[in-house]
C-alpha cells in the first residue's frame, strides 16, 4: 500500500501561476525575496542559483519578474510599493471558466481519527478542513512563506508579542442547520484559541488537544466583535507562520460542541465552514464530496462546482491507474515514477507532468544515550550514511539531500553549493568513508558490537528491501560487519520511548515539514528546553542562536542566525537526529484541468506543485479548461 504518513504525494489540485496578482497584504510579514532583490545585494545569477535547489526556481523567478528561462536577458527585478509584485508569467494562463467537478485523490489518505481539527492526531483532518474552514492568516505561497489575510483582513504587531487583527466583516458560516448562515465574529476566534489552550471538553474531561502548547499562556481580548488582540507570553517571530499552517483552521463552535462525544464518527454535519467549499458528504467508506459554497466571502471563488475524492481508490495502483487513463480521475501518480513518466510521454499533448517536493523528511535517528554516546560516532554515522545511494535505491533518483533545514524551506536552508562541502554531504565518497572510519575507530565503534538500525513497518510497506540496503550500506562504508537492520513500529518501539531516551536507532520519515519557516521546529528539536529535544542537546551557543532567531521578525537576521545554528548542527552530526533527504514526487494530470500548481508547465518543462500543503489555494487556482482537446463529455457531465 502506497501510503506515506503525514502526506506523501500531495494532491495537486492544480494551480495557476499568477500567485501574487492582486494579492496584497499590509504590514506584518514582508516579502523577503523582494527586499533582497531591492537592496541589490543579490545578483540575478546568485539569486537563481540559490533557489533552484528548492525546485521553486521558476516560481521565484516569476515572483520577481525575471524570465522563465535562465538564458533570458537578465531582467532587473521589479517591484511595486506596498509589497506587491506583478508576476510576469511567461506562459499565458488559460482563461478561467467556471464550473466542472474535479475528481481526484487530493489527500494522501482517507484516515480521519476525528472530526474536530483541534483534537485530531492525524494530519488528514487538517488537510480536509483547509478546504472548508478558514484560518486567521494564510499563505499566499506556502513554499516561500508569503502571507495574506484570511479571516483577518489586516494585522499589525510592533514587537512580535502583541498582535492585533482586524476581522473581516463579511464572513458567514454556511447556510445549513446548526449554523444557519450566521456571521463569524472575533468571538469565534476567541473560542477557537481558548478551547485549545484550556484543553477541556464540555463534560470537563481533558483529552489530547494536539496544538495546546501553541496557545498556552496566550491572552485573548476582543475589544469589539471584529477585533482580535493576542498577547503572547514571549515574543515569537514565527507566530504568524504558525497561524498559517494547514492545521490552524477555525472550526465552528456549535457543531464542534455538538459532536464532541462522537468526534470519531465522520459526518459532514460536524464541520460546517466558511470557506469556498462545503462538505456535502463525509462518511467512512463513502466518497468525500465538497461542493461550492455560494455564500463564501471571496466572491469569485471557487471556480469549480465541486470536488470528489473517491474513497478507497488510492489503495490499489492498478485501479487508480485505470481510473486515470479513463478520465474518471483527473490526476494520478504511480508508485513507480518511471511508469508515470511513460504514461505522460505517451500522451504528451493531453497530459501534464507535475513535480513536487515531498514534505516528509527522511531521517536517521541515533540514540545518543546508549550506543552512540561518543559524538565522534555520531559524526562517523553522518558520513557513513550515503544519502544519494538511498535516493537512488528507493526513489529512483528523484530527491535531494537535506541538511538540518530541508531544501524545501528555501528561505532558510543552507545553499546547495555550500551544503555539498559539509561532512555527510560531500560528493567524494572516498573522503567521507575515510574520515568516517577514522572517527569510528577513534570513538570506539568496533567495541559497540551489534548495532541494529531499525526500520518502521510503515516504511517497509513501500520499500520492502530497506533492511538489506541499510545493513549493507553501513557495513560497507565503515568496513565492519556489526550492522544489522530489523523492523519496528512507530507506535510501540519509537514514540513511547522518545522522551525516556529508550528509543532504538531508526531510519524512516520524521515529522513532515509544515512550514517554510523552520525556526520553531529547530527550537523544539535542538534547544535545551525544546519539547522534542530527544537527544537532550545542551549547547549554550546553539541555544542563544535559536532563541534569538525565534523572537525576531527581521527575516534577514533570522536567516543569518539559522544558518549559524545549522553550522553548529552540521559540525556535530546533527546530534544524532540526522536529516537525510526529501524526495520528489511525480504526478500526471490531464490538461483539461488547470491544476493547483505553483508554476505552470511550459514547453519542455513540467509544472511545479507546492512542496508544502496548499489545498487552501485550490479554490483560487483550480479550474477546468474546456478548450483542451482531452476534454470529453464524460468529464463535462460529471455530477455528484
Amino acid at each position, binding site marked *: *500500500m502506497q501510503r506515506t504518513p503525514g502526506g506523501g504525494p500531495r494532491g495537486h489540485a492544480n494551480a495557476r501561476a499568477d500567485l501574487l496578482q492582486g494579492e496584497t497584504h499590509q504590514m506584518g510579514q514582508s516579502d523577503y525575496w523582494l527586499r533582497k532583490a531591492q537592496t541589490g545585494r543579490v545578483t540575478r545569477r546568485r539569486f537563481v*542559483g540559490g533557489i*533552484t*535547489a*528548492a*525546485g521553486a*526556481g*521558476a516560481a521565484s523567478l516569476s515572483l520577481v519578474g525575471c524570465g522563465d528561462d535562465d538564458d533570458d536577458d537578465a531582467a532587473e527585478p521589479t517591484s511595486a510599493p506596498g509589497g506587491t509584485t506583478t508576476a510576469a508569467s511567461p506562459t499565458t494562463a488559460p482563461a478561467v471558466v467556471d464550473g466542472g467537478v474535479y475528481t481526484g485523490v487530493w489527500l494522501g489518505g482517507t484516515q480521519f481519527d476525528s472530526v474536530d481539527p483541534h483534537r485530531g492526531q492525524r494530519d488528514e483532518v487538517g488537510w480536509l478542513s483547509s478546504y472548508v474552514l478558514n484560518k486567521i492568516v494564510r499563505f499566499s505561497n506556502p513554499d516561500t512563506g508569503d502571507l495574506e489575510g484570511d479571516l483577518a483582513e489586516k494585522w499589525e504587531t510592533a514587537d512580535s508579542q502583541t498582535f492585533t487583527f482586524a476581522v473581516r466583516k463579511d464572513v458567514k458560516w454556511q447556510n445549513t442547520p446548526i449554523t444557519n448562515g450566521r456571521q463569524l465574529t472575533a468571538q469565534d476566534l476567541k473560542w477557537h484559541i481558548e478551547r485549545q489552550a484550556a484543553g477541556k471538553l464540555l463534560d470537563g474531561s481533558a483529552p489530547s488537544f494536539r496544538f495546546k502548547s501553541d496557545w498556552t499562556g496566550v491572552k485573548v481580548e476582543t475589544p469589539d466583535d471584529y477585533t482580535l488582540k493576542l498577547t503572547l507570553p514571549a515574543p515569537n517571530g514565527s507566530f504568524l507562520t504558525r497561524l498559517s499552517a494547514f492545521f490552524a483552521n477555525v472550526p465552528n463552535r456549535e457543531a464542534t460542541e455538538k459532536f464532541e462525544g462522537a468526534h470519531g464518527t465522520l459526518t459532514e454535519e460536524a464541520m460546517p465552514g466558511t470557506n469556498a467549499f462545503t462538505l456535502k458528504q463525509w462518511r467512512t467508506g463513502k466518497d468525500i464530496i465538497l461542493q461550492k459554497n455560494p455564500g463564501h466571502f471571496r466572491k469569485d471563488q471557487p471556480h469549480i462546482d465541486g470536488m470528489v475524492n473517491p474513497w478507497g481508490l488510492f489503495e490499489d*495502483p*492498478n485501479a487508480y*491507474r485505470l481510473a486515470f487513463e479513463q478520465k474518471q480521475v483527473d490526476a494520478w501518480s*504511480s*508508485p*513507480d*515514477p*518511471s*511508469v508515470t513518466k*511513460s504514461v505522460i510521454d505517451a500522451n504528451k499533448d493531453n497530459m501534464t*507532468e507535475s*513535480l513536487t*517536493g515531498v514534505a516528509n523528511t527522511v531521517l536517521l535517528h541515533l540514540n545518543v544515550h546508549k550506543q552512540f554516546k561518543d559524538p565522534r560516532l555520531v559524526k562517523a554515522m553522518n558520513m557513513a550514511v550515503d544519502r*544519494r*545511494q538511498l*535516493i*537512488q*535505491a528507493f526513489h*529512483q*533518483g*528523484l*530527491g*535531494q*539531500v537535506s541538511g538540518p533545514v530541508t531544501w524545501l524551506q528555501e528561505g532558510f536552508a543552507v545553499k*546547495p*553549493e555550500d551544503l*555539498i562541502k559539509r561532512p555527510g554531504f560531500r*560528493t567524494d*565518497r572516498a573522503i567521507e568513508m575515510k574520515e568516517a572510519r577514522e572517527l569510528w575507530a577513534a570513538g570506539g565503534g568496533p567495541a559497540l558490537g551489534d548495532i541494529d538500525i531499525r526500520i518502521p*513497518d510503515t516504511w*517497509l*510497506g513501500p520499500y*520492502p*528491501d530497506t*533492511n*538489506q*540496503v541499510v545493513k549493507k550500506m553501513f557495513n560497507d562504508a565503515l568496513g565492519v560487519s556489526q550492522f544489522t537492520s530489523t*523492523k519496528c513500529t512507530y507506535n510501540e518501539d519509537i514514540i513511547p520511548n522518545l522522551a525516556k531516551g529508550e528509543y532504538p536507532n531508526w531510519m524512516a520519515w520524521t515529522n513532515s515539514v509544515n512550514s517554510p519557516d523552520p525556526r520553531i521546529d529547530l527550537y523544539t528539536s535542538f534547544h535545551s528546553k525544546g519539547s522534542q529535544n530527544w537527544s537532550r542537546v545542551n549547547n549554550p551557543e546553539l541555544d542563544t542562536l535559536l532563541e534569538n532567531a525565534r523572537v525576531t521578525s527581521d527575516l534577514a537576521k533570522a536567516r543569518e542566525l539559522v544558518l549559524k545554528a545549522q553550522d553548529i548542527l552540521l559540525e556535530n552530526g546533527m546530534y544524532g537526529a540526522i536529516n537525510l533527504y526529501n524526495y*520528489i514526487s*511525480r504526478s500526471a494530470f490531464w490538461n483539461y484541468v488547470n491544476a493547483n500548481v505553483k508554476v505552470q508547465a511550459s514547453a519542455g*518543462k*513540467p509544472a*511545479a506543485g507546492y512542496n508544502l500543503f496548499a489545498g487552501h489555494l485550490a479554490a483560487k487556482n483550480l479550474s477546468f479548461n474546456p478548450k483542451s482537446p482531452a476534454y470529453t463529455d464524460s468529464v463535462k457531465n460529471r455530477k455528484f
Partner: protein
Amino acid sequence: MTQTQQPAALPAAGYTDFRRRRSVGSTLRRAGALARRNKLGAVGVILVLLILFVAIFSPLIKRYDDTESFQTANPDFNPTANPFEIAANPGLASPYILDRWESPLGSDHWLGTDQFGRDIYSRIVVGARLAVLIGVGASLIAVISGSIVGLVSGYFGGKIDLVIQRFVDAIQAFPGLVLLMLIVSIMDRPSLTLMIVALGFLGFATSVRIVRSSVLGVSQAAFVEAARSYGATDIRIMLQHVLPNILAPILVVFSISIGAYILAEASLSFLGLGPADKTTWGKMVNAGRVALDLHPWESVISGAAITLAVLGFNLAGDAIRDELDPRLRGR
C-alpha cells in the same frame, strides 16, 4: 486396476499388500509404461524435476546476488541539480545510477532487471527454491498433521471423531483467504518458515477430511477385524495395517495441493501480506504489476514461473492419483 497381487482373504478391492518387493529394473520399466500411458503426467513430472533441479542448485546457477542492485558510474552527476533537471534525468543527483528496468533484449541480464536494477534471472532462480520450500513444506505440514488427526479421528470414531470433525468444519467454514490473512496478520510480517506453517495449517482441514474417509473405509475391512481378533493393539493396527493402505490418498493429497500452496502465497503477496524477508515469485508478480504494460518482464516471467510450477505439480499429482487408485478421482 492396480498391478499388485491381492491376498485372497481381502474382500475390499483396491487395497494393496506392500509385502512384495520389486527390482529397480522393473520399476523403471513400469515408469516408462506409465509415461507412455499418461502423457500429461509425464510432462508434469519433467516440469517438477526441472524446478527441483533449479531449486536445489540455485546458489550455483544464479549468476548474481539476488538482492544486489546494479549501479553504473554517472558522468553527469550534478549535486546541486534542481528538481526539474532531476526529473528530466533522474540520475543527475547521484554519482552512480541504477540500471533500472532493463529489458531482457540486448542486455547482459538474461531476463532483464527490475525497477531497482536487480537481475531477474537470479531472483527467479532463488524464488524457485522458495516456491519448492513453500509448496512442499506447507503440503508436508498439512498432510502429516492432517493424517495424524484424521487417522485418530477415523479410527476411534465416537465423541473424539465428532469434536475433531466439528473443529475441522469450523476451519473450513472460514471464507477463502480470510483465515490465512488473519493468521499471517497475527504473525506480523512473518518469516518464510512461519508463513509455511500458516499455509500448512490451512490445508490441514482438507487432509483430515480425506484421510478420515479413507480410514473409515479401511477400518471396515476384514483384515483389520482379523487383526483385532488376535489381540493387536490399536496403535499397532493403525500403523501396520491402516496406515499403509491410506498412503495412496495421502500421497495424492500431498502432490496435488503443492500447487495450491504456491498460488496461495502468490495471493498473499498480492495483498501485501507475503513473507517479509525473502523474495518469492508472488512478490515479484506484485512488484511488477504497476508497470505491466511498460515493463512486463518482471511480472510476466514470474507469473509464468508460478504457472509452470503449479502446472507441473498438478499434472504430476494427477498422474499419481490416476495410477494409485481410480476410485479417488473426483473426491
